[in-house]
C-alpha cells in the first residue's frame, strides 16, 4: 500500500549531500533523503498521509505540542542545509504524493528556484522586534490637583495621562520607523511583518516593530552592532534580535512582494 504515504519537502538548494542529514530524524520519523533534478536538490522525508494528509492536518494543527514538534523538525532540516549552501525553505506542510511529483515540481519551477537562490546567496535573515511598554509609564507623573476639587482634578489628570500616552505612542512609533529605516539601509532587503499580539508573545509590552532583514554575510557584524546601538539609543524601547535565520521571509519564488507584504511600523 503506497497510497497512504506522502513526501514532505523541507527545502530546495542547488545541491545537498545526504550525509549532512545522517542521524537527523525527519518528520514522520524516517530519514531525510535528497532528490536531485536539473541542477536542484530537495530535502524530503516520507510521511504518513493518515497523519499529514489534507484531511488529517487541519485537526492536527490544533494540537500545539504536535505543531511545535513538526515545526522544530522542519526548521532543523532547513537550518542544516542552510549551514552548507543557499537554500529556499518550503512552507510548512508542503506534501507531495511521490518523489516523482517532487522532481516534476522542481523541474517546472526551476527558474523560480534559481532566482530565489540567487537572492539569498551569501545572505542571512535576521529578525528585529521592538517593544514598548505602552501607555502608562510617561503618564505616572501626575501633579497635585487637589486645590481644584477631586472631580476636576481627576479629569485634568486623566487628560494629562491620555496626552502623555498618545505622545509616547507617537514617539515610540517614530523611533521604530527610524530603527527599521536604519537597519534597512544595512540590508539587501527588508520586510515589515505583522507585530505579534501580546496574547502570543506572553508579555504585556506592545510590539511595535517586527522586522525581517536579509543581510549580506559580510555585513552581519555591522548589522548586529547596529541593532545593539539602536537598543542603547532608545532606552524606552526593548529591542530584540533573533537569528540568524534561514531566509524564510525572503525566499519567495513568486517575487519579492509575496505573502506577508508591507505593514507600517506601529500601525
Amino acid at each position, binding site marked *: 500500500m*503506497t*497510497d497512504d504515504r*506522502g513526501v514532505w519537502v523541507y527545502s530546495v538548494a542547488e545541491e545537498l549531500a545526504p550525509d549532512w542529514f545522517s542521524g537527523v*530524524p525527519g518528520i514522520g*520519523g524516517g530519514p531525510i*533523503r535528497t532528490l536531485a533534478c536539473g541542477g536542484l536538490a530537495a530535502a524530503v*522525508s*516520507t510521511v*504518513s*498521509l*493518515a*497523519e499529514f*494528509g*489534507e484531511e488529517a*492536518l*487541519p485537526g492536527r*494543527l*490544533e494540537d*500545539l*505540542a*504536535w505543531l*511545535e*514538534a*513538526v*515545526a*522544530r*523538525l*522542519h526548521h532543523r532540516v532547513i537550518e542544516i542545509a542552510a549551514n552548507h549552501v543557499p537554500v529556499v525553505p*518550503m*512552507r*510548512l*506542510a508542503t*506534501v*507531495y*504524493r*511521490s*518523489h*516523482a511529483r517532487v522532481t516534476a*515540481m522542481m523541474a*517546472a*519551477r526551476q527558474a523560480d*528556484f534559481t532566482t*530565489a537562490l540567487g537572492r539569498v546567496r551569501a545572505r542571512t535573515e535576521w529578525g528585529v522586534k521592538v517593544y514598548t511598554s*505602552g501607555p502608562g509609564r510617561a503618564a505616572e507623573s501626575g501633579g497635585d490637583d487637589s486645590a481644584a476639587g477631586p472631580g476636576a482634578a481627576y479629569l485634568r489628570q486623566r487628560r494629562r495621562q491620555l496626552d502623555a500616552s498618545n505622545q509616547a505612542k507617537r514617539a515610540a512609533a517614530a523611533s521604530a520607523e527610524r530603527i527599521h529605516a536604519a537597519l534597512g539601509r544595512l540590508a539587501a532587503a527588508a520586510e515589515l511583518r505583522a507585530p*505579534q*499580539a*501580546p*496574547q*502570543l*508573545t*506572553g508579555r*504585556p509590552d506592545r510590539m511595535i516593530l517586527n522586522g525581517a532583514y536579509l543581510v549580506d554575510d559580510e555585513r552581519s557584524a555591522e548589522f548586529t552592532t547596529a541593532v545593539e546601538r539602536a537598543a542603547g539609543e532608545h532606552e524606552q524601547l526593548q529591542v530584540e534580535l*533573533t537569528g540568524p535565520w534561514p531566509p*524564510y*521571509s525572503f*525566499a*519567495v*519564488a513568486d517575487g519579492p512582494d*509575496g*505573502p506577508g507584504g508591507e505593514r507600517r511600523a506601529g500601525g
Partner: protein
Amino acid sequence: VSDVPADEGHGGAADRLPAARQQVPPGTGPPDVRYERIALIDLLDRLLAGGVVISGEVRLSIADVDLVSVSLRALISSVSSAMEHGGGRREGS
C-alpha cells in the same frame, strides 16, 4: 506512486519527536529557558508565513489563512491560560 520508500512507520510522529511537551509556552518560563531554544512564537511566525508556497495540483494544499488561524488559535489558547496564572497584564482595546 511506487517511489515512496516504505521504510517509515506510520505511528504518531509527535510521540517520537524530541521533547516538545516539555517546552513551556512562550513567556512563561524563566528567561534562560526562553533563550535556550528559539521561541516557538518566533519560529511559527516564520514557518507559517514564510517559505516558498508552491501552488499546484500536487500540493496537498491547506489554505494558508486557515493554517495561520488554526495554529494561532492553538497558541492563543495555550498562552492565555498560562497568562491567567502568571498574572500578565493586557492592554484594553
